[in-house]
C-alpha cells in the first residue's frame, strides 16, 4: 500500500463518519429511545385520556394482580412453546429432504421460493386460511364429500397453530436446511460404517452436528409466535386473549398505554430469557 493516501483503517474523519453515523443516529432516535420510553411510560399515569409523567408502580400492580394477565401470559407462553416444537418437528423431514435428497440447484431454488412468502402479505394468507378452514369452507366441503361431517377448525388452538405454521414454517425450514446441509458427510459415512441404522445416525450424528441451526429455527419460531397477534386473533378466535391481543385491547380501546407497556416489557423480558437460554444451549458444551 506504498504511497497510498489511505489504508483500510486510516481514513478522513468526515468520510468515516458519513458511513458510521447514519445507523447510530437513526436506530438511537427511533429504535433504542422508543424502547426506553416504553419502560419510562410504564410508570406514568393516564389522566383525562392523556399520559402524564409520574413515577408510580400502579400500572405494574394493576396488571400483575389481574388474573386475566396471568392467564394470557401462560396461554401465550404455552402456545409459543408448542408452536416451536410443532414447527420444528413438521419442518425437519422437509429440511432433511432438502439437505440430503436433492441436488444443490434444487435446494437453491427451494430456498428461493421459501424466502418469498416470508415477505408476502401474512394478513391475506391468514384470511385465505379463514376461508379455507371455515365450516362452509373448502376443507369441510372435501371432508363432506367423503362422508365426514363438519369439523370446526377456526376459533381454536388448532386454528392458531395453523397460523403460526403459516408465519414461521418457511423460515424454520430454511434455517434447518442450511445447518443440515453443512453437516460433515464423513461423519455420516463413519456412523454408517460403524453400523448405525438410519434412526441412530440421525439421532446420534446429524441432529447434534446441526443443533445450532435447529435451535435457532425453534427460537425464531418462538419469538414470532409469541409476539404474533394475527393468528390468535383471526384463526384462534381472540378469546381468551394472548399477550399481543391484550396489548391491542389495552392500547386501542382503553387508551391505557402505560398498562400496555407493562405487558410489552414482560414479553421482552421473556423473549430475552428464552433467546439467551437457547443460545447457551446451542453454543454451549459440545454434546458427546
Amino acid at each position, binding site marked *: 500500500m506504498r504511497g497510498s493516501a489511505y489504508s483500510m483503517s486510516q481514513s478522513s474523519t468526515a468520510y468515516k463518519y458519513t458511513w*458510521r453515523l447514519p445507523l447510530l443516529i437513526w436506530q438511537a432516535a427511533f429504535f433504542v429511545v422508543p424502547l426506553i420510553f*416504553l419502560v419510562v411510560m410504564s410508570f406514568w399515569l393516564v389522566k383525562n385520556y392523556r399520559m402524564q409523567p409520574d413515577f408510580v408502580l400502579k400500572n405494574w400492580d394493576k396488571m400483575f394482580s389481574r388474573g386475566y394477565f396471568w392467564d394470557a401470559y401462560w396461554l401465550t407462553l404455552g402456545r409459543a412453546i408448542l408452536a416451536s416444537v410443532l414447527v420444528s418437528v413438521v419442518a425437519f423431514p422437509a429440511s432433511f429432504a432438502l439437505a440430503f435428497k436433492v441436488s444443490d440447484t434444487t435446494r437453491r431454488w427451494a430456498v428461493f421460493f421459501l424466502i*418469498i412468502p416470508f415477505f408476502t402479505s401474512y394478513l391475506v394468507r391468514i384470511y385465505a386460511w379463514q376461508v379455507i378452514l371455515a365450516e362452509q369452507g373448502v376443507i369441510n366441503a372435501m371432508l363432506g364429500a367423503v362422508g365426514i361431517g363438519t369439523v370446526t377448525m377456526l376459533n381454536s388452538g388448532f386454528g392458531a397453530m395453523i397460523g403460526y405454521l403459516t408465519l414461521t*414454517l418457511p423460515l424454520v425450514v430454511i434455517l434447518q436446511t442450511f445447518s443440515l446441509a453443512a453437516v460433515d458427510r464423513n461423519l455420516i459415512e463413519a456412523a454408517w460404517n460403524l453400523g448405525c441404522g438410519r434412526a441412530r445416525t440421525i439421532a446420534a450424528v446429524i441432529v447434534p452436528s446441526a443443533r445450532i441451526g435447529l435451535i435457532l429455527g425453534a427460537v425464531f419460531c418462538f419469538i414470532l409466535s409469541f409476539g404474533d397477534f394475527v393468528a390468535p386473533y383471526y384463526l384462534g378466535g381472540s378469546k381468551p386473549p394472548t399477550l399481543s391481543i391484550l396489548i391491542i385491547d389495552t392500547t386501542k380501546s382503553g387508551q391505557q398505554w402505560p398498562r400496555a407497556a407493562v405487558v410489552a416489557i414482560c414479553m421482552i423480558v421473556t423473549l430475552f430469557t428464552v433467546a439467551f437460554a437457547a443460545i447457551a444451549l446451542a453454543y454451549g458444551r459440545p454434546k458427546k
Partner: protein
Amino acid sequence: MRAALLIYLGAIFVFVFAPILASVVFSFNSDRFPSIPLGSFTLHWYETAFADESPIREAFRNSLIVAVCAATLSTFIGFATAYTDYRYGFRFKAGYIALALLPPTVPLIILALAMLAWLSQLGLSGTLTGIVVAHTVLGAPFAMAVTRLRLSQMDPSLEAAAWNLGASEWGAMRHVVLPFCLPAIISAFCLTAAVSFDEFAVAWFVSGLNKTVPVAILDILQGNVDPQINAVGTVVFLTSMALVTVAQLLLMAKGRKA
C-alpha cells in the same frame, strides 16, 4: 424412503403456497363464501375494491409513498452500515453490529406500541412520516445484510488500488465501491420496499387516518367475510413477490467479479 421424503417436501410446499393460490382463485370467484365447487368467474371484487371512491385506492397511494421513502432511507443506512463493517474496525463494533441487526427480532406489536408512544411525543403519530420512520428502522437491517453480502465478494485491494492511482476516498467510493454494490443496492431497495409494503402492525398503530394497504386490509378483516380482500391481496401478493424475486435474482447473479 427418498420418495416418501420428497412427497412430504411437496406437501410442505403445498401448505406454504396454498393460501396464496387460494386467494388468487377466490378473487375471481363469484361466491361470497368460496368453497368447492367454485362459483363462476367474475371481476366484481376487483371493480369494488378499486372503484374511484374506494378507500383502497387511497391506501395504495399511501403505501407507495411510504414504501419508496422507507426503502430509500433503509437502503442508504444499510449501505453505510455494511460499508462501515466491511472497512473499519473500532471499539464496540460488536455492539454496533448488534444494533444494526436487532430490530427484526423485536415483536412488531411491541415495536408498534413503543413507536406509537414515542412518535406521539414527537408529534409524528398519525402521519405518513411516522410510518416511514418506523419502516426504515425495520428495513435497514435487511438492506445492511444484503449489501454486506455483496461487499464480502469485493477484493479489498480494489479500493486501495484506486487510492494508489490517485483517487480520493470519495472518488473511489463513487467509481469503484458503488458500481460494484449496485446490484445489491437495487436488491436492498426492492426488499425493503416489500418489507414496508407488507408491514401492518406498526403501520396500524401509527397511521391514524392515513392508512396503508395492509391497514386497510386489517380494517376490512375486522368486519365480516369480504372477498374484496382477495382482490386486494392478489395485487399485494404480485407486488411483493415481484419485488422479492427481483431482489433475490440480483443477489444470485453474483458470479461476475468487478
